[in-house]
């Protein structure tokens, strides 16, 4: 079955096209752009690109898998709304996977801490034993993370290596597309009912009403 995977929970904008069958997950094409401010611009072209590179068409997709975060809100929503809308248009199911799991499951055996950059000097983190999540996901200041691991992966781990005080492994730095799809493979193959993709925000919205019009772009109408 041809499956599209997308993840926008970190600075990496990831699209992957994979074939999923009883033998496992085979990646056909993937596109990763690291730019924390370009999720909205990059994701759709990346999806088109992986389809073209694999010589497949969008109509052949059987399912869409999306990383549900946690991640910075604005970027995270791009992946979720893209997956939701594409699947709705195609009449195929969507499956959600915790984005940190697509790092943890790719990080190999042993006790591993996954930490991604949550901005505001915080990290999103979760702990894994042999690739299986045992704690988290949660958001915290790096100093408040209970590390309890042999090593750490993720861009947040690299950024706060000194505070975390644990061996940092440089890769994987961002959620791995094919691993993300693999974590939904059982559900895909079982024909499990599609899921509404719920973002893992882990933070409440900052309640500051929108800036008044004068500071808003409405001033586009300034006369020359």
């Amino acid at each position, binding site marked *: 079955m041809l499956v599209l995977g997308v993840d926008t929970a970190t600075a990496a904008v990831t699209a992957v096209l994979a074939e999923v069958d009883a033998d496992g997950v085979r990646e056909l094409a993937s596109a990763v752009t690291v730019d924390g401010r370009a999720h909205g611009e990059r994701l759709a072209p990346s999806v088109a690109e992986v389809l073209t590179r694999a010589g497949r068409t969008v109509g052949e997709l059987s399912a869409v898998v999306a990383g549900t975060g946690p991640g910075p809100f604005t970027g995270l929503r791009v992946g979720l709304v893209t997956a939701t*809308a594409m699947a709705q248009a195609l009449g195929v199911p969507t499956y959600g996977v915790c984005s940190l799991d697509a790092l943890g499951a790719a990080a190999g055996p042993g006790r591993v801490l996954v930490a991604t950059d949550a901005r505001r000097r915080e990290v999103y983190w979760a702990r894994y034993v042999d690739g299986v999540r045992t704690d988290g996901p949660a958001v915290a200041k790096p100093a408040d993370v209970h590390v309890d691991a042999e090593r750490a992966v993720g861009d947040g781990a690299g950024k706060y290596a000194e505070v975390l005080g644990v061996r940092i492994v440089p890769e994987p730095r961002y959620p791995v597309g094919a691993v993300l799809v693999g974590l939904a493979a059982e559900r895909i193959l079982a024909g499990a009912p599609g899921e509404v993709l719920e973002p893992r925000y882990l933070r409440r919205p900052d309640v500051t009403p929108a800036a008044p*019009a004068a500071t808003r772009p409405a001033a*586009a109408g300034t006369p020359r």
Partner: protein
Amino acid sequence: MTDEPLVLGIETSCDETGIGVVRGTTLLADAVASSMAEHAKFGGVVPEVASRAHLEAMAGTMRQALDTAGVRLSDVDAVAVTAGPGLAGALLVGVAAAKAYALAAGKPLYGVNHLSAHVAVDTLEHGPLPEPAIAMLVSGGHSSLLMVEDLAGRVEPLGATIDDAAGEAFDKVARLLGLPFPGGPPIDRAARDGDPVSIDFPRGLTGPRDLVRHRFDFSFSGLKTAVARWVEARERTGEPVPVADVAASFQEAVCDVLSRKAIDACRTRGVDTLLVGGGVAANSRLRAMVTERAAAYGITVRIPRPKLCTDNGAMVAALGSHLVAAAVPPSTLDIPADSALPVTTVSLADRL
């Protein structure tokens, strides 16, 4: 003659998730999910709350729009979306969704200007817009006067607010008077029982000197402050605040300035069609005053019905339909959501 274009429009620039379906200038569906109730307790739209609500509402609103129109996504000729201006995070949800729908259905994408969409929506009610036309767009986020030479691409800004938007002034004055958010409808209602000439509130940027530099600009901040001072003075003396009179006099001041400047723009530019749009165009006094004053100069006024004045997807679909009919090239899949999209950019293809 070819069939008129069937276009889907998506709008998420503020707090309404709107999806509309239009064929030519015929409205087939106008589905709107609003997060206004969630914002009301904060006295203004909270961007992150709006963005979250857009994501939650997207698929359901789409289903409702398609069902109402009795079409499938595979039937449409194009997907149009508000690319700006508006709240950055909110816009992005709609733009990303529109790209995904367009990509999955194999349809062209049109990233369009929110203000031009407010102009285009009138074609659904009153047919093709005579060009040139003057458009006055007044809402909680915008107060602009535009010269529309060609709705498919040539829109010139004549003036805009230099501080608060008109709708924002309604919200702030409503709060002063203990009326609910958003302030437009309750002030309109309260004003019906009030005397509009009982208090002489200031008319911003209408003095002889202002007219030199800011002839077609608006300012409502001073008006709002004047209302606040007047109410405070009353409260200090222990007298009750005549809510209906204050509401009516405030509303009269806003409508007086708006209608005066809009008609001045028509006369200055020799244009005999005036279009009024945006949420404040739902105000009953503004509709009546503009219509009456314009008639004296032989200017034809076009104001869509209130439901079409507020933000919705139908207006985006209406503009998209106009662009398709005018053979304007579509946008690429890498267009940004642009919170500060200039009014001169009607669609993101004409940037090329």
